[in-house]
C-alpha cells in the first residue's frame, strides 16, 4: 500500500501532506503532557512490533502478497493520537531508510495508513460500543480492523484515481484494483487484531487499561469483565 514517487499528481500529493500535517498537529497537541507513563514502553514496543510484522509478506490472491498494517491494533490499544504518531514513525523511517513509499507520497501514505488506518477503527469501536451497549466486543474489533484496511485502500485508490495526469487510469480502476485484494488483507488484519487484544486481555489487562479507546468502552468499564478474562487464563 506504500505509494511510490511518481504515482500521485502534485495537487493530490500537496493536499494529502496538508491533511496529514493537520492530523499530526492535532495528535501531538492531544498527547502533549497527557500520555500516561505506562503507555510509553508499550507504544515503543507496538511500533517496533508492527514495523517488524510489516516485513512478513504472505501470499494472497493472484500471486500477489500482502503484509499486516497494524493501524487497527495501534489505534485501539494506544488510542488514535498515539497510534497516529506510532504509524507515522514507521512510515517516515521506511521512506527515508528503505525507500519504501515515495517522499512525495509520504503525506498520502501517512494519511492512508496512519490517519485513516488508525482513527477509523478507534472511532468505529466507540460507535459500536454506543449501539451495542458493550456486547460483541471481539466481533466489533474484527469489523473495525477489516474496515481500517479496506478504507485505507479505498483512500489510496481515490488519491491514485484523482491523479489522472500521472496515474492516468481514473477512479474506478484505481479504487477497485486496491479494494479487492485489500479485503482479503482486511480479514487477516481483523483476525490478528482480535487475537492480539484477546491475548493482552488475558495476560496483561493492565496494558489495555491505559488505552484511551478501550477504557471508554462499557466492556472495560465493567471491571468484572477484565478480571474474569485475566483470571481465566
Amino acid at each position: 500500500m506504500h505509494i511510490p514517487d511518481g504515482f500521485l499528481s502534485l495537487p493530490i500529493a500537496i493536499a494529502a501532506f496538508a491533511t496529514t500535517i493537520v492530523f499530526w498537529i492535532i495528535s501531538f497537541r492531544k498527547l502533549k503532557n497527557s500520555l500516561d507513563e505506562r503507555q510509553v514502553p508499550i507504544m515503543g514496543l507496538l511500533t517496533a512490533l508492527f514495523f517488524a510484522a510489516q516485513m512478513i509478506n504472505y501470499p494472497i490472491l493472484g500471486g500477489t502478497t500482502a503484509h499486516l498494517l497494524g493501524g487497527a491494533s495501534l489505534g485501539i490499544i494506544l488510542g488514535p493520537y498515539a497510534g497516529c504518531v506510532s504509524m507515522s514513525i514507521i512510515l517516515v523511517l521506511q521512506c527515508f531508510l528503505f525507500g519504501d513509499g515515495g517522499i512525495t507520497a509520504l503525506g498520502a501514505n501517512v494519511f492512508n495508513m496512519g490517519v485513516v488506518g488508525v482513527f477509523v477503527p478507534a472511532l468505529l469501536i466507540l460507535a459500536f460500543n454506543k449501539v451495542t451497549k458493550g456486547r460483541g466486543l471481539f466481533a466489533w474489533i474484527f469489523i473495525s480492523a477489516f474496515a481500517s484496511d479496506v478504507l485505507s485502500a479505498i483512500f489510496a485508490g481515490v488519491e491514485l484515481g484523482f491523479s489522472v495526469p500521472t496515474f492516468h487510469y481514473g477512479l474506478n480502476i484505481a479504487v477497485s484494483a486496491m479494494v479487492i485484494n485489500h479485503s482479503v488483507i482486511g480479514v487477516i488484519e481483523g483476525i490478528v487484531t482480535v487475537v492480539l487484544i484477546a491475548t493482552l486481555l488475558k495476560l496483561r489487562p493492565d496494558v489495555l487499561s491505559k488505552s484511551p479507546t478501550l477504557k471508554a468502552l462499557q466492556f472495560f468499564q465493567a471491571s468484572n469483565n477484565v478480571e474474569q478474562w485475566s483470571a481465566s487464563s
Partner: protein
Amino acid sequence: MKGKEDFVNNLNRKTVAIGLAVAAVFVVVGNLVFSYALETLDVQAERLGVSGESILDAPFPEYTIPGFDNAWGSVLLGIASMLLIFTVTLVVANLLKKKGQDS
C-alpha cells in the same frame, strides 16, 4: 508504593523484552521465509503500464545493505532498524508524556 512501582516497571521490562524478541522473530521470518513481495499496487501499476520513480536515494533500498547480497545481512539490518524505531518512539513518547512522570 515504591515496591508497587518497581513491580510495574520490572513487569514492563519483561513484557518489552519478550515483545522485542517476538519482533526479532518477525524480522527473521520476514527475511528468510516470507520475503517475496509483490503487492497489489505494484502489480496493478505494472499492468497499467505506470512506473514509479524514486526521488530520494534511500541508504538501504528494498531493505538490503548495498553490496552485501545476503539474507542474514537483511536480517541484521531489519533487527537494527526495529531497535532504532523502538528507540525513536520511546524518545518521542517520553517527550509527550505527562510532566512529572519518569518511565
